[in-house]
């Protein structure tokens, strides 16, 4: 079944057959359709990598920028026009490696954006090197003796920094992924959705079967406002929980902290310059 986000022409998709990205794209389109958001009011911001190509494959505005830099761009777009729905979408290398510092500070800044990270624990576009989330011992053409670094845990980090929405999904489960994405997009504030994504070409360890065997849905008794419980769930690495881990309560958003919108709440492109104000500013220099 088509959605309003499908193109009416065929698209040459750069992903491998069987790639987990296809499932994420389907979940995303379904989530946006169910939320009834108009394509012209959504902006996708992506970096570089196979995941970062996602915005090319659905009908919406996008800013496909540099590797690692999607979060500053997305934060600025949202604060410049708060009426837009802004989604930053890229892979684990882009968001957690090259963009690691921006990730830390975007959590602190708490812009009202959704951050979707396709986490396949490997570099796809550059052909199979380790990513920040690759597991110890993962052998690649560069890490020939196996990865010797602790895998980056985006969830514990986000919870430790009191991120306002922290969730994990698995690409193979399109329905649950769609539901988590809907919650994230509706959430006011920085919403992280880390999505486990099988890479059929370069990651023969973390396969569809592996994810099935190593994931489980968070049960209904979990209270997402309980930060310690969320952290306990997130530190587990024998099996990986899926769902909404944490909802940071009452954290002011980037927008709410802006002096700029106190006098004129409209998007910045509607702001105009007042000649009188400029004149009085200049004249104050005569005193």
């Amino acid at each position, binding site marked *: 079944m088509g959605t309003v986000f499908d193109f009416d022409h065929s698209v040459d998709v750069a992903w491998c057959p069987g790639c987990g990205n296809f499932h994420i794209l389907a979940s995303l389109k379904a989530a946006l359709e169910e939320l009834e958001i108009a394509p012209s009011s959504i902006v996708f911001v992506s970096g570089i990598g196979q995941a970062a190509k996602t915005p090319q494959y659905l009908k919406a*505005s*996008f800013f496909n920028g540099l590797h690692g*830099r999607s979060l500053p761009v997305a934060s600025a*777009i949202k604060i410049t026009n708060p009426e837009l729905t802004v989604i930053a979408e890229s892979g684990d290398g882009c968001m957690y490696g090259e963009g690691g510092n921006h990730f830390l500070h975007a959590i602190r800044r708490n812009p009202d954006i959704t951050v979707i990270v396709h986490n396949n624990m490997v570099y796809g576009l550059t052909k199979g090197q380790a990513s920040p989330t690759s597991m110890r011992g993962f052998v690649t053409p560069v890490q020939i003796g196996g990865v010797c670094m602790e895998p980056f845990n985006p969830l514990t980090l986000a919870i430790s920094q009191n991120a306002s929405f922290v969730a994990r999904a698995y690409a193979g489960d399109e329905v649950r992924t769609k539901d988590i994405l809907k919650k994230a997009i509706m959430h006011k504030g920085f919403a992280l959705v880390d999505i486990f994504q099988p890479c059929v070409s370069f990651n023969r360890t973390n396969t569809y079967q592996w994810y099935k065997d190593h994931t489980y849905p968070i049960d209904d008794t979990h209270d997402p406002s309980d930060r310690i419980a969320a952290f306990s769930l997130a530190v587990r690495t024998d099996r990986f929980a899926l769902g909404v881990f944490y909802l940071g309560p009452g954290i002011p958003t980037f927008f709410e902290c802006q002096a700029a919108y106190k006098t004129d709440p409209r998007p910045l492109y509607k702001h105009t310059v007042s000649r009188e104000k400029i004149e009085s500013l*200049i004249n104050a220099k005569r005193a």
Partner: protein
Amino acid sequence: MLSGEAGGGLQTLEQIMLRAFKLSGYHVFSYSEFMSRIRGGNNSTQIRVSGKSTASCLRRIDIFVPFNAGAMERFKDRITHETVILGDRSYIDRQYLEEGYPIVEVPVAELARGVGGQVYTNILVLGILCGLLGVEMSLLDELVRQFFAKSGDESMNRNVDAAKKGYETGSHLLKSGQVLLVTKKSETVKHELLMNGIDAIGMGGLAGGCTFVSSYPMSPSTGVLVFFARKAQEFGIVVEQAEDEISAMNMALGSWYAGGRALVTTSGGGYALMVEGLSLAGCTETPLVIHLGQRPGPATGLPTRTEQADLEHALYSGHGEFPRMILAPGTIEQGFALTLHAFNMADKYQVPVFILTDQCFLESNYTLGNLEIPDQLNERFIIETDAEYKRYTITENGVSPRGIPGFGNGLVCADSDEHDEAGYITEDSYMRTSMVEKRLRKLVAIEKDSIPPTLTGNKNYRHIVVGWGSTFHVVKEALSVLNRRDVSFLHFSQVYPLHPKAQEFIRRAEKRIIIENNATSQFARLIKQQTGIEFEGKILKYDGMPFMLEDVAEKLDSLL
């Protein structure tokens, strides 16, 4: 010349004194140089008081006021037997006391103790100098009260006492004939503006419709960030201190994409981090305004001092080929007008526009007549999109109508990958070639919209002196001191692209002299590359200090 330790209140003294002098009918100019530290060391502020407008640094020192022992050490080669040394005996180096220099001893330390302690030394000296220059005590009283209004009653009263005490001392020195200052007053200057380069860039940005500023603090560019932070609420500007310059740059691009008019303000090292984003601006054809306040490098260099050595950095930075524009204001008027202009040019041509200043430009204060506000402030170039909208439509002059998301029904797709007209990734060689040519065609249009250099002096000159950016006032004054009717001065406030007629001015001169605050004459190299013209004489300076009037006059005299 006021010389003392960091943290000794020289900046406070400078701020109040400049206003007191201006409102009393004097033209003023000040330049401060300081060390990269919060306390101690030695900082100095030079203040010129004059009956006519001046805005360049002097090597000559008429009055030297030391604020602590050792404050004279760095000025040995500038203090002469014509310099009056005014201050506490314990602050004056022995050699000057012994060798018969004109000294006016004032027990500054004791007087400061009398009003509450050493911390009042700066306001005490303010009082002395105001007394010497015949400032009305009522005016001084008012200005001191204004300045310390938020510091609490006790602090304000003690500072007022210090000012009064100093004022009495200064008036006494004047009446007793120990110090005689001959400076004309001007009635008109009382109504003039007193500002610095930071104010000029800030106000120009506001007038140009700046709505977004993202930056990371770095001397000497931080003043501009502070300026906008203070105006954020009143003028509706989002001001964000980013986690690093990479973020600041990408935020600025995100804001322009979404309909903001964004500025980044930085210096050489910070700009180096932004360079990746500059190239992104080039490929996505996102407008951008970069204020690059230069300081001496390489690397950390001399963090608080001045240089003009980042012209090539601004010009050649960024991978790939794309057009840009570089402006370099030489006066406060130009700083205001060109910053406003930068926003309109960036928006019109969808290119990065640099405003290249330096510490000397930003932190020099002086009096000036007026700032002209053009009829049209922020020109808007964005369009409302329809369903068929394509962000990168190929056009004759290379400029595609720019839509923003959320304004119209169209999709706005911006891509750092090579893209087709709609903004989607392509590797088609025909499309690639078309897009490169489209982007580069904009440079032709920008060239036609360039600002010509300004010629000061006789139109029928024999020799020409060429400068850019912050050297405007010092070269102009040096030539007027030399009084050579056969030499004129060509100042560039747009250094790239060069105005098509610029080379005619230089080519027809018999002798050509370039003056730059750097070691390798970067602008001369650019002119040679673009026009083939070489310079016979070069006046270069790269010790971290701006040019002084006497240096320029002497060097010009020897070269001409």
